[in-house]
Every structure is written in structure tokens, then in C-alpha cells.
């Protein structure tokens, strides 16, 4: 008598466990819908902090046109709202951290002048000794052309040096960009600043 009772009991437990497993499926669907709601806040850079806290708050009453879409998706199931709120702050903060650093990193690099460019090229490990020497020769040659131009007193001829200058910058970039991308970015960003120094006689004489 006992073994059949035990078997029936085990079967009932298994059935209950199976039913419990079926009920978990909607919660996983709920979890999938949460990112869809969360992805929209990062569009506005400052607002998401307010909206994440305001989902459960009072703001939907004040703003009629825009909030109803969010409040309509969040408000109707009141029992499910706490789960969404607990999940959203973590998911909202991560995109911000990913978005913020690139704009902050780019403007931090100041433009180089000729001396700084030379020292950065001397220090980098992206290019070998032979290449550095050859590059130094070519930079010196170009500087000599600028010096000759400024000493000759011509003002209209500076543009003719722009092409060799650009070519040299491109050569440097092609040498450096794979192994030292930050230096390549800095040089690329400093191209106009360096040209402004080289093209102006007084700045050129003060630098060299």
C-alpha cells in the first residue's frame, strides 16, 4: 500500500513542479520587455534620471502628451511595476557610462606644436629606429623649405608647401596609426595647428 501512495505523491509533486515551471515563463517574457522600455531613456541625456524615478511618481499627471506612452506601459500592471523599477536603474546607468567617456576623451588632447610632435615621435614605440631617423630627415627637410620660404620674404608661396606638408603628415599617420592610435589621433587633430605655426613667419621663427 505504501509504495503506490509514495508513487502518487511523487507524481503529484512532479506535476506541481511542472505547473510551477509553466508559470515562470511569463516572468521571463516580462524580463525581456524591460530592456525595450529602458532603451528609450538614453535618448535624452539628462532626463532619464528623472524619468526612472518618476515612473512610479506623479509627473504623468503634469505632462499630458509625452509621458502617457511611458506611463501607459508602466502604470496598468501595478503589481509588476516594482520589478520594472528595480531592474531599470541598473540598465539605465550602463548606457550612460558607455556613452559619456568618448566625448570626454577626445577634447582632452591638446593640439601639438612642432617640438611636441618631434618628442612624441621620438618616444613612441610604434616605429623603429631606422624609420624614426628617416622621418626626422624628412621633417628637417620640410622645415628647411619653410625656413627658406620665410627668409625669401614671399607671402603668396606658402600654399605650395601645403602639399608636401600634408604628404608628410599622411606618412606619419600611416606609420603610427596601427601601433599607437592615440598618437595618430593627436597628430591628426593637430594638423591645422601645426600648419598655422609653420605658415606664419613669426610663429615659425619663435618655434625653431
Amino acid at each position, binding site marked *: 500500500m505504501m509504495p503506490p501512495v509514495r508513487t502518487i505523491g511523487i507524481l503529484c509533486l512532479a506535476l506541481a513542479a511542472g505547473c510551477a515551471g509553466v508559470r515562470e515563463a511569463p516572468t521571463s517574457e516580462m524580463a525581456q520587455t524591460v530592456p525595450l522600455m529602458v532603451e528609450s531613456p538614453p535618448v535624452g541625456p539628462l532626463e532619464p534620471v528623472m524619468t526612472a524615478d518618476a515612473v512610479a511618481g506623479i509627473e504623468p499627471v503634469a505632462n499630458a502628451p509625452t509621458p502617457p506612452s511611458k506611463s501607459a506601459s508602466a502604470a496598468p500592471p501595478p503589481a509588476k511595476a516594482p520589478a520594472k523599477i528595480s531592474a531599470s536603474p541598473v540598465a539605465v546607468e550602463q548606457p550612460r557610462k558607455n556613452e559619456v567617456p568618448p566625448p570626454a576623451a577626445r577634447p582632452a588632447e591638446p593640439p601639438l606644436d612642432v617640438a611636441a610632435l618631434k618628442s612624441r615621435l621620438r618616444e613612441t614605440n610604434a*616605429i*623603429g*629606429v*631606422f*624609420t624614426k*631617423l*628617416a*622621418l626626422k*630627415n*624628412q621633417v628637417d627637410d620640410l622645415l628647411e623649405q619653410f625656413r627658406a620660404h620665410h627668409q625669401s620674404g614671399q607671402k603668396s608661396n606658402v600654399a605650395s608647401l601645403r602639399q608636401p606638408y600634408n604628404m608628410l603628415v599622411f*606618412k606619419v599617420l600611416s*606609420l603610427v596609426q596601427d601601433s599607437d592610435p592615440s598618437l595618430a589621433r593627436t597628430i591628426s587633430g593637430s594638423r591645422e595647428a601645426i600648419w598655422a605655426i609653420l605658415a606664419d613667419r613669426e610663429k615659425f621663427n619663435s618655434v625653431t
Partner: protein
Amino acid sequence: MITRARAAALLFSLAALLAGPAPAAEDVTLLKDLTSVIALLGMPCDRVVSARRQADNDHIAACENGNRYRVFMNAEGRVVAQKQ
């Protein structure tokens, strides 16, 4: 004896392992450097595949496309690539 033989074999293999990569990495760096120099000087060379050192700052570089260059520093301190 077996333990000694095993230790010796282990030491030999370890020595070979440690001694091997250093020159190879040096070669790769030199080949890359020579490739960059030749390209910087405007000479046709896809990639330097081998190099033979003749003296300090003086190498014969063999390119993948068959060209050979002598890359050296001349008396004025300029790096020159001479086609051989």
C-alpha cells in the same frame, strides 16, 4: 637516473623555449622597421621578408616582390635605401 634524465630534458626544452622567441621577435621588429623605411623613402616593396646585417645601421633587405635594398645611414646621418 630516470629523474635526472627527465630533469635534463625539461631544462633543455625550457632553454629552447626561452631562447627561441627573443631573436624571432627582434627579427620581426627589424623587418617591420625596414619595411616602413623603404616605404617612407618611396621605394616599391610590399614587405621585407628577410634581412642580412652588414654593419651597424647597415642591412640588406629582401622584399616580397623580389626587390633587394641596402638600407643604411650615410655619413650625413641620413637613412638611405639603395636598390641592389
